[in-house]
């Protein structure tokens, strides 16, 4: 083995440990290895007990998110050589409870995704029968929400968000961006239904626009911007409600 590199990895075994520990592994240093390659090497060659999630190895499945030296990243998308020769510290994503080693619990995120109703909602009387074909959309209409539809649910944005880490009742970046993805879809009528949650305190108002969610997002979803834009539209709603109370539909 020519050159090597050290990885310091967060270990926690739910049945054996009360506290997590860090374990250091020495792995070969290869120019074209990403951090996930090194971790796979550890799992295969050094320590089969190490647990972590991964799948696609190409930045699309969103399952390999880890804290790399304190910054949330897709471990399949960062190269060892960017850190060489320093030691790399690998931890599970911040803000989530740890199940084992690098595996964290994502139930809270999954619940929030469903609560946001991420699907097209049509007004009952405006639903076309199937044989009338699809709902057409212009490229300009598509462009309005396309960036928000690129999310791969990797949760890096949650790990970058101090507001979520301090209080996990906050709905958080990706879920709100996904809500906006449907709110801005010309085929959708579900904004009022989603607004109940989005415009609540736990929705957008906890956000202080730290902006790191957008900085770490591997897909340029820009959830921070989605949240601020939701603040603007919710504020407009609020003033409409207060200033023209008779204009309410419900």
């Amino acid at each position, binding site marked *: 083995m020519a050159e090597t590199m050290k990885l310091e990895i967060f270990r926690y075994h739910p049945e054996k440990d009360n506290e997590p520990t860090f374990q250091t592994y020495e792995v070969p240093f290869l120019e074209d290895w990403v951090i996930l390659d090194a971790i796979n090497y550890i799992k295969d060659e050094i320590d089969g007990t190490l647990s972590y999630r991964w799948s696609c190895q190409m930045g699309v499945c969103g399952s390999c998110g880890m804290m790399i030296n304190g910054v949330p990243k897709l471990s399949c998308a960062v190269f060892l050589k960017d850190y060489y020769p320093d030691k790399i510290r690998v931890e599970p994503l911040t803000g989530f409870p740890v199940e084992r080693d690098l595996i964290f619990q994502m139930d809270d995120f999954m619940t929030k995704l469903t609560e946001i109703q991420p699907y097209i909602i049509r007004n009952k009387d405006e639903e076309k029968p199937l044989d009338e074909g699809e709902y057409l959309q212009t490229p300009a209409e598509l462009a309005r929400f396309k960036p928000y539809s690129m999310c791969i649910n990797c949760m890096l944005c949650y790990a970058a968000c*101090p507001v979520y880490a*301090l209080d996990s009742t906050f709905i958080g970046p990706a879920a709100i961006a996904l809500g906006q993805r449907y709110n801005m879809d010309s085929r959708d009528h579900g904004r009022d239904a989603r607004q109940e*949650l989005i*415009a*609540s*305190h736990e929705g957008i*108002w906890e956000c*202080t626009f730290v902006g790191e969610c957008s900085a770490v997002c591997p897909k340029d979803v820009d959830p921070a911007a989605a949240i601020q834009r939701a*603040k603007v539209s919710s*504020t407009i709603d609020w003033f409409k409600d207060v200033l023209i109370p008779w204009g309410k539909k419900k």
Partner: protein
Amino acid sequence: MAKSNEPIWWSLFSAGGMVAAMILPVLIIITGILVPFGLVDDDPLNFERIYTALSQSYLIKLILFIVITLPLFHWAHRFRFTLVDVGLKSVSTLISILCYGGAIAGTIIAAIIFLRI
């Protein structure tokens, strides 16, 4: 979930932030650099001139009143969340009262002072 009243504070925060960003730097340069270092001819801030300007124009008075009070709400909102972000969430109600209360008090005091010109 209760309907949030945050929009009122957030819109004051945004308006105040915009006013502060646009207007405060040039004012600070005037009162902190140009005037003390005598970089402008005769004394532009002399009593007569400023007093007449303010007492004779409701518009100027109103603009200055807005420039002073809106950024107070900008501060109140931002500082409130800064305190929450450094872990004081357990006393967040008290923080809100002190911050927005401070901005409201400042606005009332400003109104009293402006009415005396």
